[in-house]
């Protein structure tokens, strides 16, 4: 569910060089043309959609490397907020 929504946002804001539909959830987004500057727009759109804030230490290639890693980051951040 989260992954599907993340996929839509990556498609709109990732500025990838290949169609997102061709990428598996674990596919390497940087390999697909994601640049460091494009991650900013992606992050802002994810923050808006899921009402979360990515802390500075999560702004890494590990977090933004794939749709799956982004979905799990979003879920972790949503869970963190719910438990506060």
């Amino acid at each position, binding site marked *: 569910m989260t992954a599907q929504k993340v996929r839509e946002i990556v498609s709109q804001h990732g500025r990838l*060089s290949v169609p997102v539909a061709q990428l598996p959830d674990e596919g390497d987004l*940087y390999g697909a043309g994601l640049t460091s500057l494009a991650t*900013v727009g992606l992050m802002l759109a994810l923050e808006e959609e899921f009402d979360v*804030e990515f802390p500075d230490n999560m*702004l890494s290639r590990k977090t933004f490397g794939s749709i799956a890693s982004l979905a799990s980051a979003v879920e972790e951040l949503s869970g963190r907020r719910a438990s506060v």
Partner: protein
Amino acid sequence: MTIAQTQSAPSVDFDGILADVHRIGRDVVQPASADVDSAARFPAESINALRELQLLSAYVPAELGGMGLDVVEIGRICEALGHYCASSAMIFAMHQIQVACIVHHGRGARYFDDYLRNLVDQQYLIASATTELGVGGDLRSSICAIEVDGDRFQLTKKAPVISYGQYADQILVTCRRARDAAATDQVAVLVQKPRLEALSSWDTLGFRGTCSLGFVLTADGSTEQVLPVPFDAVLSQTMHPYSHIVWSSLWLGIAADAVTRARAYVRGEARKNPNLPPMSSLRLAEVDVVLNGMRNNVNAAAADYRRLLLENDPAAFNSFLFATRINNLKLASSQLVVDIVGRAMLICGINGYRNDSKFTLARHLRDAYGAALMVNNDRIMAHNATMLLALKEA
């Protein structure tokens, strides 16, 4: 992915090296600098003097025969050269950036280990071809691609600028990894003696001796000449931080030399009337504050980068915090060099404005204005503006 950090050889006497740089600065680089500037010609005598001191391989690790100097020490050499001839200092700095890319990202590959040993013996000069006609100055995208056939490649690139391209032994060229690769899927290739067809001339306000003409570059070679890591890693871990540190260092040299001239001028004024300090001595005290701030900023960034290299944590280089900090160094130093030279000129007055006075600051000022343009500050500021949207903590 690890970065091989250079370790300086225990026998290296850095103070002695720096004294040698100042010696050739006074004896060779400075005497040639006016002609280099007026004729917009390559400072061959300066680069040859640096070759004689084996300084083109200064950043090559000691185990491969180099001096194994670190980025802080390379920055100090750039600063020293900046006192005598900014074009010579810029060529030296740009060469060291390419050496650092190879040392950090090519080590362990047989071709590049052998190349670095040869660099020590032959004192090669390496140029760089990053920007390309048609990409709008964006280093992180390429139109050209290497065409690989078996273990050979061919490459053609239209580069709007290749500083000292005709005088270089090798050129580190960015391009797409393959014909079908995305524009951002780049590699860096060390090409040997490419064919260069000039696209433009180089008749500029300052940095005239860098001979930064545009060229169509055509090269072929072995696929071993491709750096074994993607260019975005080379850029974020080495080319970006190293460039801004060594450039800022040489701009510091320009600024410091301008202040040295201003000091000499004020001393002369003070001698005329020893009991009453001249008005300009206040201005000198003022510019000294600005120069100190610039120097501290450059030194701190170089020391931090050296520490990150020693910690060998590639993720640290990918952080927006590090990238914006390095960009801030470039933005600040490129503006301060103009500010400081301008203040020094106010102190020296008409003697600083004249071309034919020993206090002349004309070339300093012309060179200083180039700093904000090489990688335009507006582009850097726009990148920072984007990255700062993501960073939460100031």
